[in-house]
């Protein structure tokens, strides 16, 4: 009963939005019909003939790979940095003010700077030089874009990790100290597990930001693949059904990403729900 209720209530807003969309598509030639967008979505692996871009699946694959790379780096460096500033007061005093400023700047604002710094370099161009074009996928992961994703995800991960590390209760530390734990064991037995929920909150936030940033970065001139690029390419020729299809896919992937992190966060932090 509650499930039926949940589904029924949750469907109201999407249904209203679909109705508005349908009504608007009748009035305007710019707004694509629902049917044409569904058609694009039903054939996700077919590259649009009228558009200089890859298929939806290929675009999603590239966007996901960019995020995996940038977000992966942000996760690793963010957790390490978070432990550093969480454990050491001096490093906190050195880095925290700068980080607060840096976090207030949209990662997209750095894209032009990032393009100047990294140019057109990709993992393929670094590894294979002139032969880079043979490795198409690797050659799409331009460092300039990956760096911007890293920037978006790094701060939430680092700051949440730091907060988690600082929030470890003294009583818990002392429990293991009395049982004879050394510094390393304090880290593995207490600090790490105790800050896990905060780390995963940071990863979930960072992942969400990374996914939003990638789409924005791909719309920026210079990138020629990915879901964001599909939106801008579709805008250029005035065929908005591809843009609408890409937006729906972006939302779906974002939803799955967030759900996955929620699940992981629950697994490492279920003890915390009833702790306080």
């Amino acid at each position, binding site marked *: 009963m509650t499930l039926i209720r949940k589904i029924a209530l949750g469907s109201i807003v999407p249904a209203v939005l679909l109705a508005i969309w349908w009504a608007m598509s009748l009035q305007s030639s710019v707004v694509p019909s629902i049917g044409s967008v569904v058609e694009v979505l039903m054939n996700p692996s077919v590259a649009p003939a009228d558009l200089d871009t890859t298929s939806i699946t290929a675009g999603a694959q590239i966007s996901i790979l960019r995020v995996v790379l940038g977000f992966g780096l942000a996760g690793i460096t963010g957790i390490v940095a978070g432990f550093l500033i969480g454990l050491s007061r001096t490093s906190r005093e050195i880095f925290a003010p700068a980080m607060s400023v840096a976090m207030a700047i949209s990662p997209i604002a750095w894209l032009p700077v990032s393009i100047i710094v990294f140019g057109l370099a990709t993992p393929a161009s670094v590894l294979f030089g002139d032969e880079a074009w043979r490795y198409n996928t690797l050659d799409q992961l331009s460092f300039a874009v990956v760096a911007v994703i890293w920037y978006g995800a790094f701060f939430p991960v680092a700051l949440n990790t730091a907060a988690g590390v600082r929030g470890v209760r003294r009583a*818990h530390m*002392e429990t293991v100290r009395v049982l004879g734990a050394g510094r390393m064991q304090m880290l593995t*037995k207490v600090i790490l597990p*105790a800050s*896990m929920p905060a780390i995963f909150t940071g990863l979930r936030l960072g992942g969400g930001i990374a996914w939003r940033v990638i789409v924005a970065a791909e719309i920026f001139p210079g990138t020629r693949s990915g879901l964001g690029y599909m939106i801008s390419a579709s805008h250029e020729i005035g065929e908005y059904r591809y843009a609408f299809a890409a937006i729906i896919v972006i939302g779906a992937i974002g939803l799955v990403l967030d759900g996955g992190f929620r699940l992981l966060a629950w697994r490492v932090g*279920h003890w915390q729900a009833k*702790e306080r």
Partner: protein
Amino acid sequence: METHQTATKSVLQFRDAGKRFCTPARPDLWAVRDLSLDCPAGKITCIVGPSGCGKTTLLRLAAGLDDATTGQVVLNGATVSGPSQGVGLVSQEGGLLPWMSVEQNVALGLSIAGRSRADRRARAARALGRVHLPPEVSKSFPHELSGGMRRRAALARVLCSEAPVLLMDEPFGGLDEHTRRKLQTQLVELWTEDRPTILFITHSIEEAVMLADRVVVMGFATKTAEIEIDLTHPRDPLSPDSLDCQLKIRELLQQTRQPQSL
């Protein structure tokens, strides 16, 4: 016999021990001052005193969690300068780690010492049995247990590490009367089995008289009296002898003056 021989020896001694805290508000706060105390081997020593009188600080000095500002704390003949293997601590809240299962918590000392998984399991199961916790709870998490069960699990942890000296900081605080009484009785039973040296902190006079061979009355920052309790276990808190001791301790506690600032 063996127990009789060691009974005369003191395992844990405070020699003019003092601990000063420097807080911005009170730069010269002595939580414990010039306190001397012997905890005889194989006996239960209870410390009673009003809250804030320095009981917990005293225990932390013995556990090696804090260093004495003056004097020293001597454990088995050596000055305490940090946590040591032979000392088990049960803190006020029990100190169970919320992200570990009961079994992992009970065997925490063993896993820190690098003992094998099989060994940890076996000894945790035995310790849980000794504190009358059913084997099913070993996979539960602390937040899934009742207050009494959590205290039992914390007790199982110190039993598991087989420490000959146990420091207990109001381990049964905040429990209902019935559960508290049961745990007191069982603690005495466990103590009769391996005769560890116990330093037990409580603010309950009745609890002190139920458990202790010797009750130490603390005023603010220092010891005001020591009373030997020469009653056989199991004790009845309402027996005339017991009530007599309780009244005597109450009188001593009432004599200790509260400092001006409080």
